[in-house]
């Protein structure tokens, strides 16, 4: 049978190039349609590859962490004792109902009051960017599991977050992960779902240049080093020492720097934000109606454009280069209810 053309190498090459040009022009929907099955084909092996590289990076990365106070250490010991008790109680095997009860309690404790309006979909990072032109990760959860584009992605910190100052009011309640059984003290925002296929989803990290969000700056109080700020009083601006009563949150706009951190817009120098302060999500959006940590201030520099204003450089609270197990947040707050101001 003759088709009017022969399948020569030249024709094949022409067809291949034409297909590449067509997919290039058609853009996103074709690209995502092609990429998701390709990632699925690679997933069984790339999961192991990713696990190995994540372990390697965690071993190589040396992050500076605040030192732990003796009070904090004592509190940790109490917590460990508590967990041992829980483990002992569970090992008694008293039963199914006790186990169920503990799981519910632990889940509530683990995520604290802060995530009670959200459902968490556990996901695993199976693939990073093969060339470092962008900041994205692919996770093995898709629309079949309820993942949708725009959903926020959080990581659950383990022992690293235990070094947070004990006096931090915004800290979430300590518990342990019902998934891994590891102790943890809270969740941190790591990115958002950019595209979701049936079984996999692509996550953009907070360090990506397209990440833009409002955030709160929470200034940490260290009794050993009192911090002076300019507060507005009935008598006008006055310099006072920062304490719990006047430590109000400062709203800033943040964006990813495209490398490994984030930058903020300019805020008044009078707030006296210092390296070591924390950034939190606003907690009032329909996508993420809870307050989570985003990162820590590492550098405060004088704004070039506006005098008496400063900008900040932020490092993510989680080690984004070695992400493995993450949670995709499905908000249970409907946008309509959110717009009305209720739940």
């Amino acid at each position, binding site marked *: 049978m003759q088709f009017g053309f022969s399948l020569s190498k030249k024709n094949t090459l022409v067809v*291949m*190039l034409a*297909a590449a040009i067509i997919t290039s022009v058609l853009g996103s929907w074709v690209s995502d349609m092609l990429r998701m099955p390709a990632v699925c084909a690679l997933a069984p092996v790339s999961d192991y590859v990713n696990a190995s590289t994540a372990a390697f990076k965690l071993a190589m990365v040396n992050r500076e962490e605040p030192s732990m106070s003796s009070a904090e250490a004592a509190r940790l010991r109490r917590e460990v004792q508590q967990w041992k008790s829980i483990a002992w109680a569970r090992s008694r095997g008293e039963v199914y109902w006790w186990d169920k009860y503990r799981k519910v309690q632990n889940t509530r404790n683990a995520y604290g009051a802060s995530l009670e309006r959200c459902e968490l979909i556990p996901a695993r990072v199976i693939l990073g960017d*093969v060339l470092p032109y*962008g*900041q994205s990760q692919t996770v093995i959860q898709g629309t079949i599991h309820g993942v949708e584009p725009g959903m926020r992605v959080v990581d659950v910190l383990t022992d690293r977050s235990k070094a947070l100052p004990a006096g931090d009011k915004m800290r979430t309640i300590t518990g342990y992960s019902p998934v891994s059984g590891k102790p943890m003290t809270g969740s941190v925002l790591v990115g958002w779902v950019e595209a979701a296929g049936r079984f996999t989803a692509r996550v953009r990290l907070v360090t990506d240049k397209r990440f833009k969000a409002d955030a709160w700056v929470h200034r940490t109080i260290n009794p050993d080093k009192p911090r002076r700020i300019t507060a507005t009083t009935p008598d006008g601006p006055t310099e006072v020492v920062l304490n719990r009563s006047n430590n109000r949150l400062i709203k800033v706009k943040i964006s990813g720097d495209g490398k490994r951190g984030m930058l903020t817009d300019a805020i008044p120098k009078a707030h006296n934000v210092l390296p070591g302060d924390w950034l939190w999500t606003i907690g009032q959006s329909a996508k993420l109606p809870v307050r989570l940590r985003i990162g820590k201030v590492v550098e405060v520099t004088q704004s070039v454009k506006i005098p008496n204003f400063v900008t900040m450089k932020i490092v993510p609270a989680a080690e984004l280069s070695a992400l493995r197990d993450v949670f995709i947040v499905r908000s249970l707050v409907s946008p309509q209810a959110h717009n009305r101001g209720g739940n």
Partner: protein
Amino acid sequence: MRWIPFLILIYVGILVQVAVGAIPVRFAITGDIAPDIPAIIAVFFVLSLRDPRDAMMVAWSLGLAMDLMICGMDIAHTAVGPMAISYTLAASVIFRVREAFFRERALARALLVLLFCLIAHSVWVTLQTVLGFAWSAWWPSIVRAIGNSLYAAMLAPLICIGLQQCGGWFIAAPARRLRRR
């Protein structure tokens, strides 16, 4: 050209790329950089194959595999297809200039991989910025492309030695150097 073993090689090459891409090296000027392993494989085949169309089909396949795995650039979206086109273009250039080099020399391989990567990545970055209307991302990405190309060129001699050991699995009739009459 033996295509079935070559498809397996693409799969393995992409897995290696996933691993090396996850451990980038950081420089102040370029930011994170990682080697382009499929580009090294493509250059090895371009240097070893007799037929330029085979060489370009090999490059297209490797480029498409990379296209399917690269999700990011600092723009809204990266399309599938530009890397396949740019690899093919780079392969045709390398095929034309290969007679000017002693292909078995490590330095020649490194230079040709550098040239291949520079062409492929610059064309890819340019196409993506045009398709994504993101001109601001062009220059930082080009700088990063140069870093990636240099990194790949440094690894090229080593990987080519490995590929040469098992070249017979993929290439039925390797190319010979042209002789002057």
